[in-house]
């Protein structure tokens, strides 16, 4: 099925961003356009998803060239799900940003950059061409660089330098991998690669190429020992920015790993061992880091790392069940991680501070919002029946099936650390009375108008509802992820759809 619908979520973000550029410096119309644009994209993504879900894999041959000659965009259930989730997140964050991002930043291009970033993400999910994937990755990283430095405080710059250096290195390694792959196969179309790579006689060089992609995407998805940039930088930008980063940027790395390592390189034993070791160490590193930090966003940053480990581990197991678990976790993680960073912004608004030792008393002061936050935190921990719980069933089961007890142990440790850390956070920030007479503790939130307060709280609730849906209506998610996992194991429908051999 050839359908232009595929490209709409990308194009609509692009057009929104361009329109926003015409309103440079005018923050009021920008807010409106941004929210409207995000809503439109959300509707388009829903349309796309329902089309894909009800029918076949859709493709769009850009410039009307048949694959593998042109760049093809492919919407299978996986990519359209990712686009849908991204659009939900984008919608929530763009509402949040209208108040959560200061006027100065809004006047200096926050919104266009945000939409460029979202465009890059949607593009990365939908493209069926590996070099085009690189291009979208670059769109993502350059917009994230700019968003990260926007405002230019010293800590922001410190984070940004590290973030940039490592991400550029990742891109270069990724590009090197593409070059090698092209040198071996002479094609860039992912479906075509899926056909040609298995035919290559020199398997060793294929394994080596796979390592390039592993390292490149591994840096992007913050896997041990490539994760350094994340804890060094995610606490520095404004919370709305950190939310998008935390929710989506590392996940696009996971997406890429999943896509490449199911379609083009199927992990062999060596790769599985490597991935297992990485996952275990990632979980430990993230968990340990989060354990010792006292700044809410630093804690969350490390938790991102920790939970990336869960997903990588699932990929290492590489059974349909494991992949279902990874996918479920991915969906859950995007919603929750975005939300916890939005929450951190709200906490900062309410307390003027994100140090868990200083802040406190939120539960007494804002009980209802606190409980929404608690719901999100428990989802993060994986308290049943919330969203984080279900994928772990799959991961455990896959772990047992493959007798990967290291991973199971790490999964338990990681879950436990997360539980402990979030409980401590709750206890410190929400239960404890704030320390008296600290000047840094100012409640800005209460000074906002009702309308502004609503704009901050609604997106958090929106995402919380989405999370709740994922948890309580898990059946729907399970059906989707099982479908995707099946697509990953048997990639021939994808290949046939793209290359048109029916």
């Amino acid at each position, binding site marked *: 099925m050839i359908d232009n619908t595929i490209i709409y979520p990308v194009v609509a973000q*692009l057009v929104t961003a361009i329109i926003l550029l015409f309103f440079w410096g005018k923050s009021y119309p920008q807010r409106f356009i941004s929210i409207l644009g995000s809503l439109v994209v959300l509707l388009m993504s829903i349309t796309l998803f329902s089309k894909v879900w009800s029918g076949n894999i859709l493709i769009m041959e850009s*410039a009307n060239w048949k694959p593998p*000659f042109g760049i093809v965009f492919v919407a299978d259930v996986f990519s359209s799900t990712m686009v849908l989730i991204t659009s939900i997140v984008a919608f929530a964050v763009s509402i949040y940003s209208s108040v959560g991002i*200061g006027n*100065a*930043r809004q006047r*200096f*291009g926050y919104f266009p*950059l945000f939409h460029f970033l979202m465009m890059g993400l949607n*593009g990365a999910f939908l493209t069926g*061409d590996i*070099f085009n994937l690189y291009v979208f990755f*670059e769109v993502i990283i*350059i917009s994230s*660089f*700019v968003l990260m*430095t*926007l*405002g*230019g*405080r010293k800590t922001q710059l410190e984070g940004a330098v590290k973030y940039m250096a*490592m991400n550029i290195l990742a891109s270069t390694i990724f590009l090197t991998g593409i070059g*090698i792959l092209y*040198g071996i196969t*002479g*094609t*860039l179309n992912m479906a075509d690669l899926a056909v040609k790579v298995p035919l*290559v006689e020199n398997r060793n060089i294929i*394994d*080596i190429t796979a390592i390039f992609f*592993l*390292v490149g995407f591994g*840096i992007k998805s913050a896997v041990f*020992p*490539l994760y*350094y940039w994340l804890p*060094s930088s995610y606490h520095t930008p404004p919370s709305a920015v950190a939310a998008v980063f935390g929710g989506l940027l590392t996940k696009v790395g996971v997406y890429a790993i999943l896509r490449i390592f199911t379609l083009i390189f199927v992990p062999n034993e060596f790769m599985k061992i490597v991935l297992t070791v990485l996952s275990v160490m990632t979980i430990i590193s993230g*968990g*340990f*880091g989060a*354990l010792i930090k006292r700044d809410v966003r630093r804690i969350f940053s490390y938790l991102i790392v920790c939970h990336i480990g869960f997903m990588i581990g699932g990929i290492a197991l590489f059974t349909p069940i494991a992949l279902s678990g990874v996918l479920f976790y991915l969906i859950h993680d995007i919603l929750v991680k975005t939300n916890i960073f939005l929450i951190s912004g709200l906490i900062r608004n309410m307390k003027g501070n994100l140090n868990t030792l200083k802040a406190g008393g939120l539960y007494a002061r804002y009980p*209802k919002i606190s409980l929404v936050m608690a719901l999100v935190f428990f989802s993060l921990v994986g*308290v*049943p029946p919330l969203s984080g*719980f279900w994928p772990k*069933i799959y991961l455990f*089961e896959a772990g*047992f099936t493959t007798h990967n007890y290291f991973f*199971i142990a790490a999964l338990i440790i990681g*879950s436990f650390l997360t*539980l*402990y850390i979030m409980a*401590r956070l709750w*206890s410190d920030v*929400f*239960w*404890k*009375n704030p320390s008296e007479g600290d000047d840094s503790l100012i409640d*800005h939130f209460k000074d906002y108008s009702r309308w502004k307060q609503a704009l901050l709280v609604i997106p958090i609730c929106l995402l919380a509802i989405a999370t709740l849906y994922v948890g309580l209506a898990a059946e729907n998610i*399970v059906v989707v992820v099982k479908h995707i996992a099946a697509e990953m194991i048997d990639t021939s429908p994808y290949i046939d759809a793209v290359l048109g051999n029916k």
Partner: protein
Amino acid sequence: MLIAVLAGLIISILFIPLGKYFKGRLSVTIALLPIGLFLYFLSFVPQIADGKTFSFHYDWIPSLGVNFDFYLDGLALLFVMLITGIGSLVFLYASPYLKGHKYLDRFYGYLSLFMASMVGLVLSDNVLLLFIFWELTSISSFFLIGFNNEQADSRKSAMIALGITGGGGFLLMAGLVLMGYLSGTYSIQAMLTSAAMLKGHALYGLILFFVFAGAFTKSAQFPFHFWLPGAMKAPTPVSAYLHSATMVKAGVYILARLFPVLGGTDYWTYPLVIVGGFTMLYAAFHSIFRTDLKGVLAYSTIAALGILVFLIGIGTKESLLAASAFVLVHALYKAALFLMTGVIDHETGTRDITRLAGLRKVMMPLAIAGLLAALSSAGLPSTFGFIGKDLIYEATLHTQGIWSMVLTALALITNVLLLYAGFLAGIKPFSGKLPEEYSHVHLPHWLMWAPPLLLGILGLVFGCFPFLIDNSLVNPAARAIANARIDASLKLWHGFNIILLLSGITLFLGTLLYLFRKPTAKGMAELARFDRFSPQTIFAKSALWTQQVATWYSNIMLNGYLRVYLRRIIVFAVLLLGYKLIVGGHIYIDWSKVSSVDIYDVVVLGILIGAIVLTVVTPSRLTAIVAMSVVGYCICLFFVFYSAPDLAITQFTIDTLTVVLFVLVLFRLPPFLNLANKRAKTIDGIVAGSFGIVISLIALQVLNGPVNHEVSEFYGDNAYKLAKGKNVVNVILVDFRGIDTMFEIVVLGIAAIGVYSLLKLRLKPSEKE
């Protein structure tokens, strides 16, 4: 049935956030919920007693095998009656107990959540559904323990409780998933058919490990017991309800529930008997040193839980029967004691046993309740406790050989100590002379004293008329656990036998102990000397140690130095790639694929390398930039030589612009400092060099392989015919792969915006983030 389970959840969802609108008006009305449920489940008693069971199925997540599968049998019924029955009393009791409390409605919300979860837990047939409710009980317990969250130790206790039970929860989950995976179903009833397979499976031990871990943590078995005394920070109704009568029995429940599937083997028996046995002794011993009433009760609860685990471990019909009965016995008297303690605390403001005495004079009904509960706990004939104790001795005596002696002795000692503890809690505060300071104390609202009294009386009634419950509750429960027919009729009087003798000895020694030993703070202090060996200390130490290791590790990993991070990343890549290269072996040069070299190629290459060297070594920043542009220009020449004019042009233009950019930016910067020492340089040189070698070898391998130009030939053939351009590269850029270019220029646009904003935007200090 689903409604029965979910009602509590719905109520709690309404109450927790919206509580303040109810303002406590409905707190008694809310008690209709447990009462209603109690009556609802009561209606099942006759049928269950007849050996019937009830299954209920509602779809939830069929794809995952997780559905609302409820199964009501004797075991579930016993527990659900306890939960709703005691729940009713606690709900009523809490209303005056927390009257006027700011968050009373929130409290009821949590309590409803807990009750619903507990009901769900015991009714679930699906292990994962069971686990969901299991965790929800932990969460509601967390909120209830931390209910007075302004207090630091409340928070800490809540954390510890959640930490222990939550950690055990994850292990339990692993175990349940493993069971589900091995038996192909998550339904416990369905698992029964796989019981033999599971018990013989290589992973049986692992399953037990996981399940025991969950059960022991939840049911406060040694060495995880210490969260329970801490949990006494919760309001007393909570202690009575969660931390004595119901939640802590969830661990026991799951052992009982899984007994038919997993139980009866040595791997099952020994750990449970040892841990249960040790726990009961340890806790019973500790209970007598407490001076805080709730402390005494907490430890005696742990001991009781130990007894239950012990009994399930033994796994004979007698022991399972004893366990079934003892669950009920203990729930009745312990809840009564807790509720009574709550009243005392509420009215006198203290729970210190050494200060409490003679309260019978001011609150007689409570004294009666206390006395009845204490007697039941002591196992005095004609109390329900007596029957319980009998059954325990019967169970221990029915084991084989030397075991029977040992286990009986253990049970005896435990019972003696527990008797003492029961007296201490139930009798001591009311006996003796009323201190002056408590003379003004008076009886509280009747809803506070009636529940313990009722429980105490029930203990007496069941003791005198055991037929009321033997076939209706206890036998069906035991039957369900053993998955076999058990038709014991509970009797108050068994005649003179060894069991009676043991009971007598217990009573005698315990009473003796009560009469001659007075609880003192000194005793507690003595015991505190051993704290450094206590599991709590060890756990705290290992937590601290973990924290230290985590700090050490994280500081090494994230030391703030970008170059260290980059070095590690490169080393990682080199190791992986190098390993694969070495394993792959066979590196050779295929001369047939190598083209000739012209002198200008070599010269340009030489210059290029020279320029690279200059870039690397020069101490002058400007020279580095000059050298860098030479690198670019030489590459540009290569592009010309090797047929890439477009590339050459672009490379050249961009290099020139980069120079301009650098120049505009750099002129304020100080000169390079020689910041690295020789060692760092050498290491970096080796790392970088090996990466270069690896890349070169890979490139060589790729070049040795075949080449496929299908796509580029298509471009060449169709560039003019179909895309109307003769410069194929440009046609690719604007047509064949125009999308790339589209988004590539977006990258540029973003970069420009970034530059502009980075340099122009100045935040005011008032901008918060």
